[in-house]
Each structure stands twice: as structure tokens, then as C-alpha cells.
């Protein structure tokens, strides 16, 4: 089974991950990759985020989400990478890569993994701005997105 889940402080290289996904004996006709970035959509005051993680639970949680997605969407390879620690604006936070026979299952699998990751995997973001530090609050829109899959 081609599932790969990693939690790391270090950055990742999307082209390397893309190559790794492609090194599969199973036939596939689609590769979907998603990268989530640190963003500042408000007022350009964001300097960094601190990503805290309950690592042993996060590993279990991401593996469980990946296994569920793998079985549900008939994909060939599924890779999930989530970073921790201090990240700057535009830094990469999370990677999801999927190979599948067809594009629909690859897109759906990546969406499913992100929707569950954002609502179940134990990571917490703290935003450090030029004026203060504050913990990011859960968004109801993320929970609503996840419920679509139920």
C-alpha cells in the first residue's frame, strides 16, 4: 500500500515529492499535488506562525485519515507531509500528493485528506504579528467542509 505520512520541522521539495510519487509500479493516469502556505490575507502585519503539534497523536491521526482516503478513492500513492515549528510568510506548511488511475479520484482524495486534516489532526497555529501573538481559532467553514464527506 502506497501511503507515506511524515511530520517534520524541515521544509520539503515539491519536485522531489512529485518524482517520488511517480516512482510507482502501479499504473496511474493522474497526479494531484496540494501545498498549503503561510499566508497574510489581512493587513501585512503577519511575521511568522508557530505550529505546535501533539506529535504521537498527529502521526496516528494523519495515518488514519490517509488510510481511510486511500481505501475510499481507489488511489495508487498517497503522501502527506506536515511541518511544525516557526514558519515565515509564504513558507510551505503542508503537502498532499496523490496518484490515481483517474483525475476525479486523485482530486477527491486530496480534498478529503485536507478537510479531515484541518479538523482532526492535532496541530495548532499561533500567529506572530508586528503588534501581538494570538492563537488561530477553528473555522466553522472547515467543519462544514468536512461534513460534506459524511
Amino acid at each position, binding site marked *: 500500500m502506497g501511503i507515506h505520512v511524515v511530520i517534520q520541522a524541515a521544509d520539503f521539495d515539491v519536485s522531489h515529492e512529485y518524482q517520488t510519487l511517480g516512482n510507482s509500479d502501479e499504473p496511474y493516469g493522474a497526479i494531484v499535488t496540494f501545498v*498549503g502556505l503561510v499566508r497574510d490575507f489581512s493587513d501585512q502585519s503577519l511575521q511568522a506562525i508557530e*505550529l*505546535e*503539534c*501533539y506529535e*504521537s*497523536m*498527529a502521526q*496516528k*491521526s494523519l495515518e488514519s485519515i490517509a488510510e481511510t482516503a486511500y481505501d475510499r478513492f481507489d488511489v495508487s500513492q498517497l503522501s502527506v507531509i*506536515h511541518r511544525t515549528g516557526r514558519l515565515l510568510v509564504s513558507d510551505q*506548511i*503542508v503537502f498532499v500528493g496523490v496518484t490515481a488511475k483517474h483525475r476525479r479520484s486523485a482530486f477527491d482524495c486530496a480534498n478529503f485528506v*485536507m478537510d479531515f*486534516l*484541518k*479538523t*482532526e*489532526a*492535532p*496541530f*495548532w*497555529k*499561533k500567529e506572530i504579528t508586528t503588534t501581538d501573538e494570538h*492563537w*488561530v*481559532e*477553528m473555522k466553522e467553514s472547515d467543519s462544514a467542509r468536512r461534513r460534506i464527506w459524511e
Partner: protein
Amino acid sequence: MINILFFGKLRESLGVSSVTMESGSITSVQELKLALYTEHSQWQALLDDPNTQVAINQTLKSMESHINDGDEVAFFPPVTGG
């Protein structure tokens, strides 16, 4: 012994990331919380926040769940990763 962990805003508000407690007569999350309040009364408002979640041995559970000696019990706010 029960190993108790706190994360995120809750960890910062409590000012501690982990404590241990003799399991004694504690058999549920609710009993564990009451035992914690006996030692740290100021923790009650934070741990009783309806948004606070609990995991037992790295699996999300309800506040009504049973716990056993040797369990790892973690309290934390809703997750915000990704």
C-alpha cells in the same frame, strides 16, 4: 499513574505542558478533571470550556470516557493545522 498533557492555547493559559497524577480512584475523564481542580482550582474554567477536547492514548474521546492506570490523557482546543 496518569500522564496528562496540554496543548496550544490551553497549554499556554495553564502555564504547564504536562502533569502526572496518581490514578488512585480515578476511573474517568470527569474524575480526573475534578482531581485536577482540587489541586488547581483556577484550571476549572479552562478545562470545562465546551470547546476543550480530550484524547486518551492519542485517540479523540468524549469527556465521559473511562481511563485506566498508565493512560496518556491530553486536553487541547479545537485543532487549526493545515
